[in-house]
């Protein structure tokens, strides 16, 4: 559309001032490049150069041995072999994935349910605006402060234990943050709370986009709301569901603030136990700020970059096919 318009415009100018035409158009379009420059320069300096240098670091041995920096010594794929030979990588990847799945399954189920309810005209829910406002709220809360809040609320002497004991549900305090599964559960629960509102709103927008005639036809044919949901809404929502799934997985891979603050950066619910809540990015952060192992940090970053790039490619394909 835009191009066509421009062409018409060009033709018009052509008839008016034939001689001037070429010069004019070129001088306008020069501004396109000028307007693009700030983005391009900042991108090159602060994102592309860092990306390239991260990749370069991944091929070098370069770390702090406690006294001074060792390297950089070129090791080709040495770091990669080391990374995959060490089973820690798989433990951290497993932790990240487990906590993501534990949060994502309730998130997608609840969001689908809420989106179906909010967009169902027959249900006529009152105060929908209020509910939407409330469920989106946790998404904007500072994740680190939210995690600190949960840490105090769920501590052994905290209010949650006190409430559960007052209600007679617990006979003694339970140290949520000293146990593997309760800590993972809390991380997953917080991820769920922070993201289900966002997912609901996205899915709702998707449902609003479905042709109402389809629902009317189904109603005329006597379909129940369950049938409508599974036979009409869900199949038509598939592209947006894939989008939500993959972008959530990309977000899940970046899981950091919540487990970092909850476990004080150790990734250990109980001091000395296995690293059951250490995520990939927490591990990267350790390489960057604690152990200063830039070589391994680079290797881990490249691995994460490749995984995200593949996932992003899927998103890109799915969302462009829609048009």
């Amino acid at each position, binding site marked *: 559309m835009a191009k066509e318009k421009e062409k018409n415009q060009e033709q018009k100018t052509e008839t008016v001032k034939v001689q001037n035409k070429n010069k004019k158009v070129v001088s306008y379009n020069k501004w396109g490049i000028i307007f693009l420059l700030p983005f391009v320069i900042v991108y090159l300096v*602060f994102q592309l150069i860092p990306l390239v240098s991260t990749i370069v670091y991944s091929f070098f041995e370069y770390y702090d041995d406690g006294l001074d920096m060792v390297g950089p010594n070129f090791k080709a794929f040495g770091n990669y072999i080391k990374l995959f030979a060490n089973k820690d990588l798989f433990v951290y990847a497993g932790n990240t994935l487990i906590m993501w799945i534990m949060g994502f399954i309730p998130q997608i189920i609840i969001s689908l349910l*809420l989106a179906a309810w909010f967009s169902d005209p027959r249900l006529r829910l009152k105060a929908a605006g209020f509910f939407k406002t409330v469920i989106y709220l946790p998404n904007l809360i500072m994740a680190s402060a939210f995690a600190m809040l949960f840490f105090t609320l769920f501590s052994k002497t905290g209010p949650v234990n006190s409430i559960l004991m007052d209600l007679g549900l617990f006979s003694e305090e339970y140290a949520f943050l000293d146990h593997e599964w309760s800590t993972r559960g809390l991380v997953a629960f917080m991820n769920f709370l922070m993201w289900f509102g966002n997912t609901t709103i996205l899915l709702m927008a998707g449902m609003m986009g479905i042709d109402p005639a389809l629902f009317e036809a189904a109603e005329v044919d006597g379909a*129940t709301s369950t049938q409508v949901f599974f036979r009409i809404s869900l199949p038509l929502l598939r592209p947006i569901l894939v989008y939500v799934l993959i972008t959530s997985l990309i977000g899940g891979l970046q899981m950091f603030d919540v487990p970092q603050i909850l476990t004080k950066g150790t990734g250990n619910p109980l001091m000395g136990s296995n690293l059951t809540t250490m995520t990939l990015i927490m591990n990267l952060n350790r390489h960057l700020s604690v152990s200063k192992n830039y070589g391994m940090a680079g290797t881990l970053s490249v691995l994460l970059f490749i995984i995200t790039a593949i996932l992003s490619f899927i998103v890109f394909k799915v969302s462009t096919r829609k048009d």
Partner: protein
Amino acid sequence: MRENKTSKGFGIGARRVIAYIVLIFLTFLCLFWFYVLFINATRSNANLSKGFTPLPGVSFMDNWNSMIHGTLPVFNGMFNSFFVAACSAILSTYFSTMTAYAIHAYNFKYKNAIFTFILMIMTIPTQVTALGFIRLVDKMGLMNNFIPLIVPSIAAPVVFFYMKQYMESTLPLAFVEAARIDGSSEFHTFNFIVLPMMKPAIAVQAIFTFVGSWNNYFTPALILSTDEKKKTLPILIAQLRSADWLKFDMGQVYMMIAFSIFPVIVVYLILSRFIVSGVALGGVKG
């Protein structure tokens, strides 16, 4: 309502009741923690150790004073967070709109290639380039400086994409042509014709960029690691967690968490309608 009941599904009335029960339960799950936070921020340490009470205490001012005179410079942190977030929001929205305008209104070589490239880099997280980024910042001598947290927001692919989408639906090129005929320079046209027309989109994205920067912990923690005066709120919260918190006055701890959470909640409640509809617009590729 009864007639609506079919052999398989629930009646509409029953479905409505279930929907309200689930929604009220979820509302409870979303708000309960902040309610407890508010209550506990008003109670003294001694009072807190006696267990939870559903009503606020009387120690709000005491906790406030001990927070102000405490070891963590929270006011400084809030100012730093605000400064970084506000600058990021302004730069990000202004230059993303400019980038979107460049792609939207002009024709030049490789335009489509650049557009596709920006779409492709949209989902690449900042964490994977963090190593190269902090090494670069170190070499530039910009550690413990706000510049590396503010300037990179000029290149924000997500904001760009939103602006581009919005422009396609609201900015006819005829306006630009008309301005040209009136003798307006291209830069002037952008600042005084295009920007005002983009106001709603700019507001939505300014809010999201502001909140994103305000809440950001990973990168600022790496850049602002040693200068106590430059630290932003999330870094101070992490320090609070690392401190020997059992010795802390818990009333003060709750007050600090409340101090970093409640301003955002208040602003959100004022702007909520706007934000919620903004999410829906941005998420779905139109």
